[in-house]
């Protein structure tokens, strides 16, 4: 209707034809949202997402030869680190997801003392799920723990995401002495049915 009225108005003026030409394409509105010809090509050209799993695909034949006592033994729980047996060392739990990193500090029994996440740290929305955010968060909570007089800790990581490596590195940068790194990602070979795939 609006278009008709506009056309009528336009005809009254001498410039009507010119303006009509300008208006016509607007009202047709055959605007395509996006040209998606080669999405696969585009996705392939994008840089791969950092999941904090550096060295996953590495094929080092003899890299373990130089490292002795890397893996835990049965006497590990009672071995002393800085005068504290391993089983009594406080724990850093790092929960990593693609969109956030949550770090919590617990004592040896698993009672939480401190919590910190990238969102609390001041990173909002998409910035939460970056390695920079994770590192900053880890630095903050690490210094807080250091102020309490705790220096030796063990680290438990869960999940994959950009913050996986960055958080551990941040803890180390804050001056903590990390004794061990444990992966506790929950993996099942017969899980309940997961959510449906995202449409691309």
């Amino acid at each position, binding site marked *: 209707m609006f278009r008709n009225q506009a056309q009528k108005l336009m005809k009254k003026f001498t410039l009507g034809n010119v303006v009509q030409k300008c208006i016509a394409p607007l009202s047709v509105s055959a605007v395509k949202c996006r040209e998606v010809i080669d999405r696969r090509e585009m996705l392939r050209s994008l840089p791969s997402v950092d999941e904090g799993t550096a060295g996953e695909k590495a094929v080092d034949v003899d890299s373990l030869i130089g490292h002795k006592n*890397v893996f835990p033994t049965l006497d*590990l729980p009672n071995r002393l680190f800085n005068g504290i047996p391993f089983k009594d060392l406080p724990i850093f739990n790092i929960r990593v997801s693609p969109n956030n990193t949550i770090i919590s500090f617990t004592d040896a029994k698993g009672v939480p003392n401190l919590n910190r996440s990238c969102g609390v740290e001041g990173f909002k929305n998409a910035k939460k799920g970056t390695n920079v955010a994770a590192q900053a968060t880890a630095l903050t909570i690490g210094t807080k723990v250091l102020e309490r007089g705790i220096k030796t800790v063990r680290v438990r990581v869960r999940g994959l995401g950009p913050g996986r490596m960055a958080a551990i590195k941040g803890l180390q940068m804050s001056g903590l002495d990390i004794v*061990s790194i444990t992966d506790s990602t929950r993996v099942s070979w017969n899980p309940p049915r997961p959510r449906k*795939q995202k449409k691309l």
Partner: protein
Amino acid sequence: MRHPSFIARTVLVHNNDVEAACRILNRILGREDILDQFRRTRFFEKPFQFRRRINFERCKAIYNEDMDRKIQFVLRKNRTDPFPGCS
């Protein structure tokens, strides 16, 4: 049975070299198919995808087996002439 925590999937850090420890851990997790399984179970794998993946893995395993045999043949050591065709 649950694996005892801080014994399973654990690496010790030496000389404060966190990155090396992480790399060892990640490599083992990758080799043991744990990370792949984790990624695979984020979203439901439709039956046709499952079939295609299994078939692909089967073909790959057969190819790898043959290729290994070939490599072992080329690299075999107890030959009468250690460098055949080079004299």
